[in-house]
């Protein structure tokens, strides 16, 4: 085989992988059995984790990358892509996940950050990365570091979709506000939001992020997933919402169908019938700021 002719890990290949996930649902799983349920339901990928965010929140302590043994088992079980989380700034955890054959690394605020100042230099990896963002500046800083996909941070493990809505609208509002600005005004915006000027200008021109933008952090029902799609998300991550629901199989299938039918209320009504209760969840209002996961990352 002549591998010299093949170019691996280029920006096109990394961003292209993220684009193939569009219109899909990525589900958090902690066991091979859960991964199989997700694949069967029609998930486009699974996120392999030690514990779902709702449990990480409950247990406290330092949350780290998942046990490589479990990640390996999940990779061996399903044929769809497997993603896994690394701590913010923990490039060695990311390297370990890449070595295992994980298809995308989530540098995630759900885990305890490993670096108080810097995120991972994602351009150094062959594997693509997804990162969370609450606003345009954060999104563009992550893209500048090499992220191939952005997702809203929302507030993971709560089952409360309000923060995902807030972050999606924030990013889109900031992009809309770039339209019609002169070059010098865009330079001013770049300084204010602490983002590279080239990316600000490209975003202004395209009127969307240059990589796909998924919704995450609190999506718990088919209606939540459809809401995020209606707000312009390219796809949806569902964390605790599936395996903390009363009937994970039904909930997983319903959320996949809801994302495909997000603009059809009559169909959404059918899809939402008889699927059992969603995760109980916690209202974001009751979470003290110092316990909010979205505050992690810079």
């Amino acid at each position, binding site marked *: *085989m002549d591998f010299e*002719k*093949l*170019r*691996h*890990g*280029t920006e*096109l*290949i990394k961003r*292209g*992988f993220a*684009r*193939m*996930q*569009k*219109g*899909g649902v990525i589900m958090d799983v902690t066991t091979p059995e859960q991964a199989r349920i997700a*694949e*069967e339901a*029609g*998930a*486009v*990928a699974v996120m392999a984790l030690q514990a779902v965010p709702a449990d990480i929140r409950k247990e406290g302590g330092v949350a780290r990358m998942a046990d490589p043994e479990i990640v390996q088992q999940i990779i061996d079980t*399903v*044929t*769809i*892509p497997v993603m896994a989380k690394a701590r913010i700034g923990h490039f060695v955890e990311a390297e370990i996940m*890449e070595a295992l*054959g994980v*298809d*995308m690394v989530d540098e995630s605020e759900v885990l305890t950050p490993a670096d108080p100042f810097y995120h991972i230099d994602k351009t150094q990896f*062959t*594997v*693509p990365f997804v990162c969370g963002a609450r606003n345009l500046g954060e999104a563009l800083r992550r893209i500048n570091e090499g992220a191939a996909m952005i997702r809203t941070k929302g507030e993971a493990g709560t089952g409360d979709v309000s923060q995902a809505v807030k972050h999606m609208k924030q990013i889109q509002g900031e992009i809309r506000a770039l339209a019609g600005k002169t070059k010098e005004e865009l330079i001013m915006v770049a300084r204010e939001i602490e983002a590279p000027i080239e990316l600000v200008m490209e975003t202004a021109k395209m009127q969307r992020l240059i990589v796909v933008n998924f919704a995450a952090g609190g999506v718990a029902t088919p209606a939540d997933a459809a809401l995020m799609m209606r707000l312009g998300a390219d796809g949806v991550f569902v964390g605790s919402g599936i395996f903390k629901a009363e009937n994970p199989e039904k909930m997983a299938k319903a959320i*996949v*169908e809801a994302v*495909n*039918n997000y603009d059809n209320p009559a169909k959404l009504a059918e899809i939402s019938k008889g699927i059992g209760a969603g995760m109980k969840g916690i209202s974001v209002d009751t979470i003290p700021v110092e316990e909010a996961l979205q505050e992690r990352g810079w």
Partner: protein
Amino acid sequence: MVFLMKIGVIAIQGAVSEHVDALKRALAERGVEAEVVAIKHKGIVPECSGIVIPGGESTTLCRLLAREGIAEEIKEAAARGIPILGTCAGLIVLAKEGNEQVAKTSQELLGIMDTKVNRNAFGRQRDSFEAELDVAILDSPFTGVFIRAPGIVSCGPCVRVLSRLEGMIIAAEEGNVLALAFHPELTDDLRIHQYFLNKILNC
């Protein structure tokens, strides 16, 4: 009202907008007016003069194509001779037979092409690549973008092999149906979309 030709892009999941854009640009390039529609539900495929099945996750595509009732419509369109282009996951969906990876997920393939496919024939995402390809229908190399790409392992006598890489068939044609293991919609090169439009316009 003037009848406007419709070309449909199956919009269940994956690189849908990229194919819609590429088709629109290809149509503009040759000055042909046609409507490019994204298809999520049944009832639209029978009105189309050409169908694109884009890349994405083939398990998701196959399940939802069946659940939404689009799978049968595509089979009927293919039988009527409507040109169909399948890229990446689309190449899997079109096949008659899959390897054990495909069988494991009990995907229902459409069986439109007499091909046997291997899912993720080139490995996982870290093995994904770009490469310059010789494609029989083009007179100079084409940049192929391979993302967890499938390959055709074997095919029937009616299938014309258009390109091979590392022992896999990566582009093939069977009458009105064209299948590619790579993603022409991710590059600016419109030659393959133009070739597909030729098929539609000469139909």
